């Protein structure tokens, strides 16, 4: 083997491995479908329409950790409302008889570990559009743990834990709202 090939081939292999590791290690955003709860709902159904507004979220940077974007969280909430029948109609940033505001207050994510536990704190407020009366307002704090068995790659494990915390958060809030009788 020539002296040139002695260095070129191992160098090429190293470059390919590093590239693969980098690509495998890039963070991806949390997915709407993964954040929408898949559960059997038992809620009081309302005939009115609700408009959903979410704030406090962030976009995901490939070199950072998976974050929750406002629009994705809002769409997951919309999906949960549709699946549960909590309201007959729902829109994101639209109009309706009711308004559901959700503030993503705190997303606590670990940086290292074999298992990742993510904590999500949100504040939910349901108000009636006709007179701006606040019908229900509450902070909701949830968590989810993803283990090595869920995903070997750390960034994927973190995304799964973040999606799980979001899913639990929506589940808790919709269940609580579904227990009250709206007028």
């Amino acid at each position, binding site marked *: 083997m020539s002296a040139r090939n002695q260095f070129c081939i191992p160098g090429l292999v190293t470059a390919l491995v590093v590239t693969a590791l980098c690509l495998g290690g890039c963070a991806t955003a949390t997915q709407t479908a993964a954040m929408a709860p898949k559960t059997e709902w038992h809620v009081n159904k309302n005939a009115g329409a609700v408009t959903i507004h979410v704030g*406090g979220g962030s976009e995901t940077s490939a070199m950072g950790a998976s974050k929750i974007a406002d629009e994705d969280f809002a769409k997951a909430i919309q999906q949960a409302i549709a699946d549960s029948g909590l309201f007959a109609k729902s829109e994101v940033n639209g109009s309706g008889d009711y308004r559901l505001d959700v503030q993503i*207050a*705190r997303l606590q994510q670990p940086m290292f570990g074999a298992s990742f536990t993510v904590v999500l704190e949100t*504040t939910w407020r349901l108000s009636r559009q006709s007179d701006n009366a606040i019908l229900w307002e509450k902070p909701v704090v949830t968590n989810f743990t993803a283990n090595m068995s869920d995903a070997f790659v750390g960034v994927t494990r973190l995304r799964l834990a973040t999606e799980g915390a979001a899913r639990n958060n929506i589940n808790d809030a919709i269940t609580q709202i579904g227990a009250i009788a709206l007028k």
Partner: protein
Amino acid sequence: MPGTDLSSLKKLYVVRLPADQRGVERLIADRLNVMGYQATAGEAVNTPADIDAVVTYQDKWMWDITMYMIELNVQVRQPKTQAALASGHSLRTSLVRKSPPEMVAEVLTDLFKKHP
């Protein structure tokens, strides 16, 4: 909260994160004072009764030759219910790191810009 108007807030109290030994609560209070608010800082048990909102935060630090603040989250909360009215966030990895006062300024400017 989306659409929440924070302009009526005057007196704020920054609650020190128990694990924080770097005085980040003082940086936040100082910056709020520069922004025109009447802000003080201290322990949760000493929260004054006459404040308009409580400010909480979570800071995260990493080591890369020196320690630097990689992430800062700040929340403005109703004093009675602790419900979050607004929140701000900054994430800066090592190559784009900023000093803690700069990170605080960045987060608070963004937070109050979204809720004028």
